């Protein structure tokens, strides 16, 4: 069955299109993009072999790409499953996501990676790529079998959630990963500086009596790791940059021509430690890295707008409600991000004029795809038939109990956002429709 997406405003930064276009998807790929393809539908008769997706009044985007998410498979189906996680992704307009390796057991074994890749085929509703562990058990000491992991289908490697403390191990991991063309996704954090910290270090943490997690725990690790990327020539991608002080090392590394990219999350772009002051001991604000100061947030917005930060990634990290409902120090880090990501950045950055809409789209489609060399993120003939339809004017309230994700924890609860995904298409198949 072919799919005709008709009457929408196509916004595809990678192919330079912004305007009224119809799209025809054949055999799972974009076949034709033209201002009017209605001649494909013979008048008066039922179209044969062509499904029509009406997009008038809607924005047609290349399917969003999220290179940082936790689908919790295998081993933590109480937090999320491939099915619920990818339905949540689809509901947020994502057509491909990267799931990270801090599962139970950790994805440090080619058999586990191959098994997960096979399960994705059966259970996922969007495309899922697997990032395997860098070190055995993500313990930061011995290298995982990166070559075999790549052969088994890993698209990248990462010890996300557990920073690699030893600079020597990090150096060899980068060198070795380079030999297999793997990008290392870096959770940059100095464990000594981070200590027991759970909240951005400063007056809010001090007043609540909660241990602070200073910005420099991130920034010194970023400085170290981009320098190692320069030394080794290996591809380093800095995940979830949160601190202003992390931007200068990234800028210098890029100026030097080091193979470094970086991402930022919607929550670090939109929220600050003021949310912690508001939610107090409710751990729905607990993320790692923590929500930081307004000056950090400002700097991140600027860095994204100028492209110093390459892309937006959600760090969708669902947890069961009972796990999050714990003393702040004990509760796990992480919030659900798929279903609010686009709308949050659209509401907080695009609508107030801080970021042009095409830039937002670019940073959530072609740029994240480019970081990992994934196909997609563009809607030119021959590209995967992955797209998302958004209604930018749709105003809605975040009601986590209506999420597709099993993780209902978000500090955005009750917040009013603009922009809703109305339909998501993967390989020419409609995998999500907003029934609301």
């Amino acid at each position: 069955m072919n799919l005709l997406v008709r009457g929408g405003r196509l916004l595809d930064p990678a192919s330079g299109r912004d305007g009224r276009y119809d799209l025809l998807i054949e055999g799972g790929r974009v076949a034709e993009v033209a201002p009017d393809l209605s001649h494909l539908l013979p008048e008066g008769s039922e179209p044969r072999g062509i499904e029509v997706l009406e997009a008038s009044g809607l924005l047609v985007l290349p399917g969003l790409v999220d290179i940082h998410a936790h689908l919790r498979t295998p081993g933590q189906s109480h937090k999320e499953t491939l099915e619920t996680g990818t339905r949540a992704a689809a509901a947020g307009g994502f057509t491909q996501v990267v799931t990270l390796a801090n599962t139970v057991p950790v994805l440090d074994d080619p058999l586990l990676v191959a098994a997960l890749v096979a399960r994705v085929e059966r259970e996922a509703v969007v495309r899922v790529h697997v990032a395997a562990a860098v070190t055995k058990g993500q313990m930061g000491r011995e290298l995982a079998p990166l070559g075999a992991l790549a052969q088994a289908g890993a698209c990248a490697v990462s010890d996300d959630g557990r920073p690699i403390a030893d600079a020597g191990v990090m150096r060899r991991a980068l060198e070795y990963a380079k030999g297999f063309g793997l990008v290392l996704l870096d959770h940059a954090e100095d464990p000594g500086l981070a200590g027991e910290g759970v909240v951005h270090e400063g007056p809010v943490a001090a007043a609540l009596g909660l241990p602070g997690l200073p910005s420099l725990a991130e920034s010194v690790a970023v400085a170290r790791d981009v320098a190692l990327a320069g030394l080794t020539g290996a591809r380093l991608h800095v995940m979830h940059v949160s601190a202003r002080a992390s931007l200068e090392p990234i800028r210098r590394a890029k100026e030097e021509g080091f193979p470094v990219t970086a991402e930022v999350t919607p929550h670090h772009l939109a929220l600050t430690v003021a949310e912690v002051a508001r939610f107090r001991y409710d751990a729905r604000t607990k993320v790692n890295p923590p929500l930081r100061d307004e000056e950090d947030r400002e700097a991140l917005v600027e860095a994204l707008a100028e492209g110093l930060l390459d892309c937006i990634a959600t760090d969708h990290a669902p947890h069961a409600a009972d796990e999050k409902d714990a003393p702040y120090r004990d509760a796990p880090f992480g919030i659900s991000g798929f279903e609010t990501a686009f709308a949050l950045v659209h509401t907080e950055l695009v609508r107030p004029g801080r970021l042009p809409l095409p830039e937002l789209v670019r940073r959530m489609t072609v740029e994240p795809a480019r970081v990992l060399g994934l196909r997609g993120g563009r809607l030119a003939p021959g590209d995967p038939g992955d797209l998302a339809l958004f209604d930018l004017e749709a105003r809605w309230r975040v009601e986590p109990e209506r999420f597709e994700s099993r993780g209902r924890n978000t500090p955005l609860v009750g917040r009013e956002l603009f922009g809703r995904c109305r339909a998501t298409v993967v390989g020419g198949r409609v995998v999500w429709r907003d029934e609301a």
Partner: protein
Amino acid sequence: MTAGAPAPGSLLGLAGLPGPEIEAILDEAEALLASWRKGTLPALLRGKTVALVFVEPSTRTRVSFEQATNLLGGRAVLLGEAGSSLEKGETLFDTAETLRATGVDAIVLRHPEPGEPERLAGRVPIPVLNAGDGTHEHPTQGLLDILTIRQAFGRVAGLRVAIVGDVLHSRVARSTAAGLRALGAEVVLVGPPTLVPPALGRALGAGVAHDLARGLRGADVVMTLRLQRERMRAAYIPSLSEYRAFWGVTPERMAWARPGARFMHPGPANRGVEVTSEVHDAPASLVRGQVRNGVAVRMAVLARALAEGGLRPARPPEAIAR
């Protein structure tokens, strides 16, 4: 995990509590203290049951809450982690629900994790009194410190109080400083930068000094905090002797404060570390009064939580025994 507002009469911290409300509690404590001396304590808690839930060891706070409950004619039931259902992995909130269902009228909670009294108060319809939550607050200790100061000086506003030691990890310092600020006192936090970060001064509206002589200068009250020995393992301080050499309060160093300055310590003290016995036991020391005031303040906050009509209207100052 929807949380509601705490029941009226709850006491979760002194931060954010308005000065007049603190004054009212102190006035009530004074009045109860006077009645206690005369043997005429009113049975304000008659028919009331107070659960003392101590998920962390404590002697003086637990005993003085128990004593305060008994003195006002109420009944105290004691729940520690060992031997209680908390030990079996039941959550604090489920335990509290059980307590409430059995007719408990208020919960006094000591917990090692910051914020647990506040989280509990959002879920039970009865008052919750914070008896110390990790490194956050210990409001009844703060109140008794402030009451002790008010008794010694006849006022709080305009005094300069130096709090010396491990402020970063001190729930007492957070409560005492917040209450003192609300009543118009000046507070200076004194200690090495590892234990007295500037952000904490900003959070509490207090000054910060990393030099003992400077910190004590002009102080009417010098309060030292207990130094936990585990701070050395985490590299906050090099050694007890180094700490003693630079931050220990001795009679000579008390002379850096204002003449007639008084000494305080929330206890239990490491004699010879943060303070010498000469200072701790000197006539200028208010430590003994602190302990007695602990019972009075806890009577007052229990009355505020449970007595019919809450606290009695504040009486004119001359009616209050000083």
